């Protein structure tokens, strides 16, 4: 599957396209295969997102997981500062990223 990501223009936060809006959580991302360019153009024009682009992902335990490690680190936060990630208390998060 293809999922669409970018950064919030004002805050810079990593965001994911949910089909109707942008979420901080990659689990909310939906498959945009085929319509990625159109959504990216429209959302960038309305300044709801900065520099959006689509990446490869797979379904993992029922939720999208980016295929590449870079996108997984991007989705979660720095592996060397678990306290600053989106899931600071999840003990299994390391295996999800790496």
């Amino acid at each position, binding site marked *: 599957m293809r999922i669409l990501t970018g*950064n919030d*223009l*004002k805050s*810079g936060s*990593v965001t994911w396209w949910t089909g109707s809006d942008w979420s901080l959580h990659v689990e909310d991302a939906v498959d945009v295969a085929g319509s990625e360019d159109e959504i990216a153009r429209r959302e960038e024009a309305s300044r709801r997102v900065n520099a959006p682009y689509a990446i490869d992902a797979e379904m993992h335990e029922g939720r999208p997981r980016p295929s590449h*490690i*870079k996108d997984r680190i*991007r989705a979660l936060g*720095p592996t*060397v500062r678990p306290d600053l990630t989106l899931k600071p208390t999840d003990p299994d998060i390391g295996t999800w990223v790496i």
Partner: protein
Amino acid sequence: MYLYDQYDQAMVDARVAEFRDQAQRRLEGKLTEDQFKPLRLMNGLYLQLHAYMLRVAIPYGTLNSRQMHALADIADKYDRGYGHFTTRQNIQYNWIKLEDAGDILADLAEVEMHAIQTSGNCIRNISSDHFAGAAADELVDPRPYAELLRQWSSFHPEFSYLPRKFKIAVIASDTDRAAMRLHDIGIQIVRNDAGELGAAFYVGGGMGRTPMIAPCIKEFVPLDRLVTYAEACLRVYNRHGRRDNKYKARIKILVHEMGAEEYTRQVDAEFEHMLSQGIEPPYAELERIRTFFEDPLFEEDASADIDRSDPDFALWVARNTHAHKAAGYVSAVISLKPVGGIPGDATSEQMRLMADLAKDYSFDEMRVMHTQNIVLPHVRLADLHALWTALEEAGLGSPNLDTIEDIIACPGLDYCSLANARSIPVAQKISERFAASGKTEALGKLKLKISGCINACGHHHAGHIGILGVDKKGVENYQLLLGGSEAEDVSLAKITGPGFDEAGIVDAVETAADVYLREREEGERFLDTYRRIGMAPFKEALYG
């Protein structure tokens, strides 16, 4: 240290207003991201892996306690309570909001700081020797020349859209502590046979994907022509630097392809023309700047005694202090490399402590080292124990300067959108491994440098041992390099062979270290042994 006058202040204030306006136009959609990007980069604002990142300039690495306190306050107010000191003597914040950027720049301007030209295809922050003004071995303090060039390069109308970024370092000692010959322009202040001071120009060095050592193109430029000569160097680069391929756009490629001789000929011709153009500030301006860098009032009879009866203290003194030009003083290095820690990171609390210690013990002055540590340049030997005690209590007393634990590491894939592999976890595991094995002491001076991609922000080409992270079909992989140096014995490291996974690279570093311990002769550093015996014994041990 240098203090702004009303003119300097007016310039940074104008820049704050300009960037507020540019950010506002971006938020309103009047600027596209493509148009905004070079503008925000020229104010040090990147869009990184997780958020906007702001790089704040610390010109030639010098700052006072008020400025360090302001950096700590910014970390708390706008970021997540910490900052990262970089290999070009700057500081980066990783979690910045675009809508806060103008306020941050305004806070910086309050303490005579800025983020001007800390990125973008322009002349970047001028770096220098972190022991400038203190080192026993320097000819003069190089920072007045760096400040002169800082002002010349700030908002330069002709050179703000260069083919690529442009980095300048200035030193004034035969010992190179600023990787001078790995810069686009490296300047060494020298004295000629007539006893006059001048500048030797080294042009076309750099790391990145095509590392080059800068050749000396001019052995002596008189000090009253320094700016004009730099201007000539830049104009020839702006005219001929490649713009068709960003990977070949740095001046090192131009000097290499054109040849140093032809490049120099063109610079000299341009210089002759420019001498009549009134570009050079009067010599009185250099003298004015110099007055800010006069020695503090060192105590004349400062005691030369140190009580080394505490072995932990004695080790820290032996490792983390550097010879000072004034009797009874040393420069003391605060290591930001605790075992298992993140190289170069400091919390806001640590920044405040360092600031307060600088005020108490170092004439209110600090330096950022390109090795991502902090220097208190002027510490009385009599104060060293009190200083060390305070550092120890705060976890800042690691006695590991220039050892294998003193690792340079770029932010890598944990933070950087360009990275291919993580650097920090590798640094953490290596420092833990060597601290646990106790081999750190035996290995002595050993510079280990890690980059998470080919752009080489972690200076891997210049490490006695270098590590380069690459992406091997979506998996992090690490190449090992040996034999680099960024110092006066500058050399570029060579790759040993096939790469390793994360656990494998830590083992490989230990294997290479063991070859050194086995083969070394009396007085040899790792680098010396490598240069004597060559790559073969290391390859044999690693892959044999």
